[in-house]
Every structure is written in C-alpha cells, then in structure tokens.
C-alpha cells in the first residue's frame, strides 16, 4: 500500500494542508480553509482520516470544523460547545484530541468538552471545572487556555490536560474527577519558598511517549521535564539545553526515549531562537543528554519562535519531524531531525502542526 503524509497546519488565518508521498521530498500546499478563521489546532483521526480544526473567530465565536475529504469540503459546529448561561462565554477552541470512543476539545476559558458523534454535538466535561483549585486559576499570556490534551491509548478513562497557567491535571475516570499533577515542576514567578505549588504552574506543552502511557514529556515556562509515573512526579531534563524556556514538545512515534524540544533564548529576552540560530534539540535517552539539530535550518537572523502546538512527528520510518514558526515558515525533516528543509514560507502565524499518514 502506498502512503501519503498530510501536515495539518493551524494558522491565525485559517487551516492549511501540506501533502507529500512517503518520500517527503516535495510538498503541495492547499488552503486557507475554514473561511480564514483563526485555527488553534488541526488534527486528524488516524483511523478514519477525518480532519478536525478547532478555533474561534472574533465575530462568530468558537467552533470545531470538520472535513471528511482531506480538506476539500468543510462543515462546522459548536452545538453544545458552551458554558451555562451567565458564565463567561467560550472565546475559542484551543486543542483537540481523537480517542477511541470520543473526540475531545479544550477551550478558552479553560474547560473540556467531549463529542461522541464526530464533532456534531458537544457535552461539557464538568468535572474539571469542579476541581477545588478552579477559583484560583489564572491566565497565562495567551489566556486561560486548555492547550494540551493527552489521551491514554490503552485506557479511554485516563486523560491529562495542560492549562496555562493552572498546570497539569489528570482524570482516571473519564473526566468525572481530577487531580493536580505538578509535583517537581517550578513556578519561578512565585515568591521565594513558594516555587513548587500544587497547581498554578505555567505548563506550555505535554506529550506522551509511545508505548509507555506513564511517560510524559513537558515543556514548561520554567523548565523541561519528564515523568515516568503519569505526571505524579516530574524530573527536570533541562541540563544541556540552551535555556529552560520554550513552547512545543514532540515525542518520537516509536521510541519512548526520543523526544524533541525547541528552546528559545528565554522568557524576557525576546523569545527568539538562541543567538538567532535555529535548532531543534533531540534526546535519545529520555532527556539525560541533548543534541542540537541544525542542518538546513537558518543559522543567522532567525528571530522567530515556535508556538506550543507547532511541532509534530509523523509515523513513517524514519520518522518525520516538522515545525512551523510565528513568522509563517514551515520546516520539515524526513530523517528524524538530521536534515531540514523549509517547505513553505510567508504563511500566517502558525499556531499548530500535526500529521496523519493515509493510504494514497
């Protein structure tokens, strides 16, 4: 069976799709889709190839868009994607995740919604809002957003979410009850002696290692971390990296020891590539050591950043790695990060990159 790879790209002005054969040497870009609404996250169900795009429009509010023909036609719905009357209305959808039994959406202000009919109707997963810490959640720079949504492929009741800046929370019962899981992650912006609170950390991105659901990698505003117990405890893995600040993280599709980060030059220094030289950093040993991957990436004048959902890997062998910049450039590697090429530029600000491999 021949395969093709779709890169699903969320931008400030609609969704785009880049398509290639399994060789991943040349790419065809299509879009913008979704009536140029800001799209925060575009994902595909790996089983069906159905594409979902979550975002929100200043005029028309939040919605999840859906395409069953690889982007050629789209519908949208926000039926049920609302809080109770009188509460602060939802501004936008920020994250999507496809599970075996349901589709999930994380929104701003932070909350979780579930759809069992492919995004046609939505139900509020109210348990998260009932966590006793909820009155004390404070927004990060992008708002009070639920941006990381991690589902356990082996257990549909197990869900992790990352909320800026409330931290990581886990539910073991399908969303009915939740537990804060931030032990070991820092909050440098708190007064001395209060830097390891139970919640309130500024998590930027959480991803799961393949085949090992209890191994999570986290990029935080204040450090990079790994957990081997489903987030109950976190260990710093920032030693050897050029800074402790960045936004995205990506896991290898098969090797739980391999993951990718894109450290920036710090949170108060412009948030650019360190020394204006672009690099993706890779570990092959669970974060004990890191190497900079630069071949093919701009090594001068790279004053861009990469946002929290804008890096992904694909499932091919060897794995592809992709990231999009706030300046609208899209970079791809077909060999696990060794060699890079710019495959699109001058796009709107890229907010997310995901992949799906389908039969061609």
């Amino acid at each position: 069976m021949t395969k093709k790879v779709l890169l699903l790209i969320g931008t400030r002005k609609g969704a785009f799709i880049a398509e290639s054969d399994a060789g991943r040497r040349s790419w065809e870009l299509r879009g913008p889709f979704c009536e140029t609404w800001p799209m925060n996250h575009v994902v595909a169900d790996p089983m069906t190839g159905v594409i979902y795009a979550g975002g929100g429009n200043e005029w028309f509010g939040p919605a999840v868009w859906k395409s069953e023909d690889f982007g050629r036609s789209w519908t949208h719905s926000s039926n049920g994607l609302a809080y109770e009357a009188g509460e602060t209305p939802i501004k936008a959808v920020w994250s999507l995740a496809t599970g075996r039994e349901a589709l999930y959406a994380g929104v701003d202000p932070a909350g979780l919604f579930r759809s069992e009919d492919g995004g046609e109707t939505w139900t509020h997963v109210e348990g998260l809002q009932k966590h006793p810490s909820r009155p004390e959640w404070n927004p990060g720079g992008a708002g009070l957003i639920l941006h990381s949504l991690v589902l356990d492929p082996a257990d549909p009741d197990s869900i992790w979410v990352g909320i800026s800046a409330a931290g990581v929370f886990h539910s073991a019962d399908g969303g009915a009850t939740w537990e804060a899981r931030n032990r070991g992650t820092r909050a440098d912006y708190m007064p001395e002696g209060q830097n390891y609170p139970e919640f309130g950390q500024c998590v930027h991105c959480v991803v799961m290692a393949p085949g090992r659901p209890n191994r999570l990698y986290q990029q935080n505003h204040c450090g990079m971390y790994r957990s081997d117990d489903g987030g109950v405890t976190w260990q710093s893995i920032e030693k050897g990296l050029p800074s402790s600040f960045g936004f995205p993280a990506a896991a290898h599709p098969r090797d739980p020891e391999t993951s990718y980060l894109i450290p920036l030059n710090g949170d108060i220094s412009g948030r650019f590539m360190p020394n204006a030289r672009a690099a993706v950093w890779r570990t092959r040993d669970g974060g004990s050591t890191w190497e900079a991957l630069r071949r093919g990436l701009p090594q001068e004048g790279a004053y861009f950043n990469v946002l929290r959902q804008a890096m992904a890997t694909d499932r091919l062998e060897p794995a592809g790695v992709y990231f999009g910049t706030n300046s609208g450039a899209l970079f791809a590697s077909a060999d696990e990060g060794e060699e890079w090429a710019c495959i699109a530029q001058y796009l709107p600000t890229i907010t997310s990159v995901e992949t799906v491999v389908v039969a061609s």
Partner: protein
Amino acid sequence: MDQRASLIETAPAAERPVLVRLPPHLTALFPGAERLVALDAASVAGMVDALEARWPGMRDRLCDSTPAIRRHINVFVGGRRATLETRLAPGTDVFVITAISGG
C-alpha cells in the same frame, strides 16, 4: 419592483415580515443561506430563533452563551444598536453587521 419591495410590500401593513440583511462572511458559513431574509419575528431574539430554524447553527454564530448578541456583531434596528430584547414591529428593517475587528 426591487427585491425588498417584492418581499415586503405586497402584504398588509400589520402582516408584513421583518426584513433582515446578513453579512456575507456569515452566510458563507451556511450553504444556501441568503443575504436578504424575510421572516416573522416580534423581537431580535425571535429573529435569531427564526434564523436558527432555517439554518441550524446560525444562533451560535450571532449569540454567545450569556446569552447576548456577540460582542463584535452589531444588530441595527431603526438606526440603533439592538439587543436580544429589542422589539420588532412588522415590516422593520434589521441590519446584521460585523464590527471592525481582527488583525
């Protein structure tokens, strides 16, 4: 006879429909939706109900869950910004307009 006249002026005054103008980037979201719509409604809330009945999902684009007309959507009735409670007399012209917004 123009389109407005054909929709409204053939009916007796008390039975005339409300005439609603919708912005193009709203109708683009609903296949088959029209820019000029004649419908029966006694208030802006009733107008939204009628639009929702014709094109399911349109309520969520015009109103948030407060419930209220969305912050960057303006509904003008008689030259003034309306709320969901604003009454609509038979034959009223309603303009749904998107505000200056975005970046």
